[in-house]
């Protein structure tokens, strides 16, 4: 029996779709949906310290697996999200959080974009006002002396 051509054509696509789960991180199930949701949110918020641009949720390294296990155990032991975050920050520093908190040491990090935006808006406003004034003055009667000055200047 021969497979219809369409199915044959779809076979590579099906194979591609089947690939991702093979590389995905072992799926864990916590007893309640609420705990599971907190777990998912937490592991996406922590940086894997080895492959630093990945979260604990996506990292395949075994240190990330150890950290995920620690998070699960703390969740099951009744720790709050805040306590779990503090556990990791006190051992690895703020670097482990993808979203750094607003404390005095990180204030510049949060405030600089706003300051730059203000500076940009102010200078844009200044430039626009200046240009508008120039255009407006075109419609006014020019001071005849200005023109004379120019001619004189050129004549020299």
């Amino acid at each position, binding site marked *: 029996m021969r497979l219809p051509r369409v199915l044959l054509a779809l076979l590579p696509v099906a194979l591609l779709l089947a690939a991702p789960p093979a590389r995905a991180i072992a799926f864990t199930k916590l007893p309640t949906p609420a705990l599971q949701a907190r777990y998912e949110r937490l592991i996406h918020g922590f940086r894997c*310290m*080895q492959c*630093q641009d990945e979260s604990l949720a996506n990292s395949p390294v075994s*240190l990330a697996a*150890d950290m995920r296990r*620690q998070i699960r155990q703390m969740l099951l032991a009744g720790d709050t999200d805040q306590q779990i975050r503090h556990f990791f920050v006190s*051992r*690895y*520093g703020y*670097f482990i959080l993808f979203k750094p908190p607003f404390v005095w040491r990180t204030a510049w990090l949060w405030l600089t974009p706003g300051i730059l935006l203000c500076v940009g808006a102010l200078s844009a406003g200044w430039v626009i006002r200046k240009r508008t004034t120039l255009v407006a003055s075109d419609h006014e009667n020019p001071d005849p002396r200005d023109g004379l000055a120019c001619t004189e200047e050129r004549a020299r």
Partner: protein
Amino acid sequence: MIRRFIPLALFVGVAALLAMGIKQAPRKDLVPSPLIGKHAPNFSLPSLTHPQRRVSTAQLDGHWYLFNVWGTWCISCREEYPELLAIAHSGVIRLIGLDWKDTRAEALAFLSTRGDPYQRIAFDPGGLEAIHWGVYGAPETFLVNPKGIIVYKYIGPITPQAWADDIRPRIPADAAVVGS
């Protein structure tokens, strides 16, 4: 006339700032530890070499020691091993090992062929103790003072130069291992 050069001056300024940032940026693989200046984590773990005994903070307090995180699977740890043996031989300071995410059989075989520079080795196959120390790779080495405070952390294999420049100068003379 000067006004025309303002954008150029701004550009040069920003470029200089960025160049400085790139040059002085700390290496991304060296994350400073928040544990420096803090008390080392309290622990009590089974000994690698004597499974029925334990290695604990209580035994370590009162002496300077280097807490070295290693594993037989770790290539850089093998690289620094001759230096660890030299440090142990010099008697400048005690070496305490944390055998991280390893199997006892492999670790013991490694020690018997390469020699054992450690005074004690704690066994951490599950990797939780390493998390308490903020370890994110091996080898990592912590310098701990007699009060149990972590005064320095060295990330990566200890080369003879790293020992001479970065670690040795931080160890006082009274850290020397007496009677060994």
